C-alpha cells in the first residue's frame, strides 16, 4: 500500500518535471528589442507571451504595426531595463548593440538574434524562425503559407518592365540585393541601380540619376525637422520623374514582415499607372 503510494507520487513528480521541461521550451516572458522582431513577435506570440517591444514599433515612420504596438509596453533596448523585465527570451536583431547583447549574455538571459531580411523568401523563413523560438510553429506556418500564396498572386511577369530607381536620403539607391530592391523586382520593375553596377545599392549622384532617365523615381517619406540628406531625392530636377511615385515610406519595407505585400501591391499599381 505504502509502496504503491510512493510509486504514484514518483510518477506524479516525473509528470510534473516533464510538463516543466515543456514549459521551459515555450518562453512565457518574451521581450523584443528590435523593430523587425517586434512586428514578427506581435504577429506570432500567444496572448500574454510578449511582455515588451521596442519604442520604434510605435513610430509610424518606421513601423507597419503602430496600432497593434499600442497594446504593449515599450522598451528602449537597454540591457538594464530588459533584465528588469525578467524575460526568459529576448528577441534582437543581428545589428543590436553588441554591448547590450554581451551584458544580457553575462546576465544569463537567452537571446535569439534575427538577421535583416534581404529577400522576400526571408519573410516566410523569419516567420518560421521566430515561430519556433516562441513555440508557435503552427501559427507561424499558417502565416508563412498565407504570405507565400499572396505573394505568388501579386508577382507577375509583365511584358514591359519599366525602369525605376529607389532614391532615398543622401541619394542612396537600394539595389536588387536588398528587400526594397526585391519588392521593386516583384512588382515588375527593373532597377536602375543594376544598370549602374550597384546590385548591393549605393549613392547615385543626381546628375547620374537624371542621365539614366528612369521611368519612375521612388523616394521615401520625410522625417520631421529638416535635413539636407532628404532634400536630395526631392530636388526640383526630379519632380517629373517622381510624379508617379507610390508614396512608400520606410515602414512599408524596412522589415521582412507580411506587410511588404502592401508595398508590392502599391508598386504594381504605380507600374500600371505609368503610360508606356
Amino acid at each position, binding site marked *: 500500500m505504502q509502496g504503491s503510494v510512493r510509486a504514484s507520487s514518483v510518477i506524479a513528480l516525473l509528470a510534473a518535471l516533464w510538463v516543466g521541461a515543456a514549459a521551459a521550451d515555450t518562453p512565457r516572458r518574451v521581450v523584443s528589442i528590435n523593430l523587425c522582431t517586434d512586428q514578427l513577435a506581435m504577429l506570432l506570440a500567444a496572448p500574454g507571451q510578449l511582455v515588451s517591444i521596442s519604442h520604434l514599433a510605435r513610430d509610424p515612420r518606421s513601423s507597419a504595426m503602430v496600432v497593434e504596438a499600442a497594446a504593449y509596453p515599450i522598451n528602449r533596448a537597454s540591457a538594464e531595463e530588459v533584465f528588469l523585465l525578467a524575460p526568459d527570451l529576448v528577441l534582437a536583431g543581428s545589428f543590436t548593440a553588441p554591448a547590450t547583447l554581451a551584458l544580457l549574455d553575462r546576465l544569463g538571459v537567452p537571446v535569439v538574434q534575427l538577421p535583416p531580411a534581404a529577400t522576400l523568401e526571408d519573410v516566410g523563413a523569419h516567420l518560421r524562425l521566430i515561430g519556433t523560438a516562441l513555440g508557435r510553429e503552427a501559427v507561424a506556418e499558417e502565416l508563412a503559407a498565407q504570405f507565400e500564396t499572396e505573394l505568388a498572386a501579386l508577382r507577375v511577369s509583365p511584358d514591359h518592365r519599366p525602369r525605376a530607381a529607389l532614391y532615398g*536620403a*543622401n*541619394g542612396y539607391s537600394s539595389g536588387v540585393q536588398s528587400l526594397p530592391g526585391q519588392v521593386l523586382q516583384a512588382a515588375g520593375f527593373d532597377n536602375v541601380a543594376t544598370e549602374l553596377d550597384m546590385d548591393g545599392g549605393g*549613392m547615385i*549622384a*543626381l*546628375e*547620374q540619376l*537624371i*542621365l539614366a*532617365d528612369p521611368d519612375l523615381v521612388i523616394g521615401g517619406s520625410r*522625417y*520631421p*525637422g*529638416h*535635413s*539636407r*540628406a*532628404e*532634400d*536630395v531625392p526631392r*530636388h*526640383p*530636377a526630379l519632380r517629373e520623374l517622381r510624379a508617379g511615385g507610390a508614396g512608400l515610406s520606410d515602414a512599408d519595407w524596412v522589415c521582412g514582415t507580411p506587410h511588404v505585400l502592401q508595398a508590392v501591391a502599391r508598386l504594381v499599381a504605380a507600374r500600371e499607372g505609368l503610360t508606356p
Partner: protein
Amino acid sequence: MIAPRALALSLSAMVAALFVASLLIGPAALPVGESLAALVAGGDGPLALIMREIRLPRAVLAVLIGAALGLSGAAMQGYLRNPLAEPGLIGVSASAALGAVIALQTGVASAHVLALPVAALLGAVVAVGLILGLAGPRGSSLTLILAGVAISALAGAFTSLVLNLSPNPFAASEIVFWMMGSLADRSVLHVAIAAPFILGGGAVLLALGRGLDALTLGEDAAAAMGVSLSQLRLMLVLGVAAVVGASTAVAGAVGFVGLVVPHLLRRAVGARPSRLLWASALGGAAMVLAADIAVRLVLPERDLKLGVVMAIVGAPLFLHLIYRTRGEFP
C-alpha cells in the same frame, strides 16, 4: 597698383572662365558642346535638366556667395581698419548658420519662404552688432579675434545642440555642412532664396565705398568730410548681415574667403577701400568658383566641403597676418 579698368576686366574674365568650367564639371560626364547647347536651348531631355536645374544653380550660387563673402570681408576690414576682420573668423557666419538651423528645424522655414534667409540674417546681425560693440572702430586685433572666437564657439555649440535635438535622424550628421559649407545638390529654389538678399545687401555695401575711403584718414577727418559714422555703421551691419546671412542659409558657413581675397587684391587697388569692395566681390566669386571646382575634381564621389578647401588656402595666410600684426598685441 593696377589700373582699375584693367583689374575689373581681368577679374571679370576670370570669373566668366571659371563659371563656364564649373558648368562643365560634374559626376555625369556630358559632352561639352551638347551640354552647353542644352543649357541655352533648354528642352525636355536629361541634358537640359542637368544643366539648368543642377549645374547652373550651383555655379550661380558660387558666384553670388563668393561675391558676398569677398565683399563683406573687404567692407568690414575697411570699417574696422583691420585685415583680420572676416565674417567666418569673427563668428558672423556661425551665427547666421545658427539662425538658419533654428528656422529649418522648427519648421518656420517651410511655413514661409522668407523665414530661412531672414532668420540667418538675424543671427548675423546679432554677431556683427556684438563684434562692432566689443571691438569698435578703434579696437585692437586681439579684441576682435577673441570676440570672434567666443561668438563662433557659442554659435557653433548651439548649432550642434539644435541639430542633435532634431527629430530628424539625418540632422546630426549635417553639423559639418553648417560649419564647413557646400554647394552640392543645391537647386534654383536656393538661388531664389539667396539672390535678393545678396544683391540688396551687396548694393548697400558697395555704396559704402566713399565713406570707407574717407575713414582711412581718421574718424575726425571723415566726419569733417560729411560722412555720418553712425549711418555708415548701420549700413555696414545690415549689408554684411544680409549677404552673409543669405549665403550661409543656403550653403553653410564658408570661411576665409573674406580674408584671403581682400588680402590678395589690396595692393592691386592701391589700398583704396572703395576699389577693394568691388574687386573683392569679383575676386571672391572667382575664388569660390575655383574652390567648388576643386572639391568636385579632388573627391568627385564624396561631398568634400568648400570650407575645407578654403581653410587649407586661408589658414596659413591667417597665421601669416597674425604674425605680421603681432606688434599690436600687448
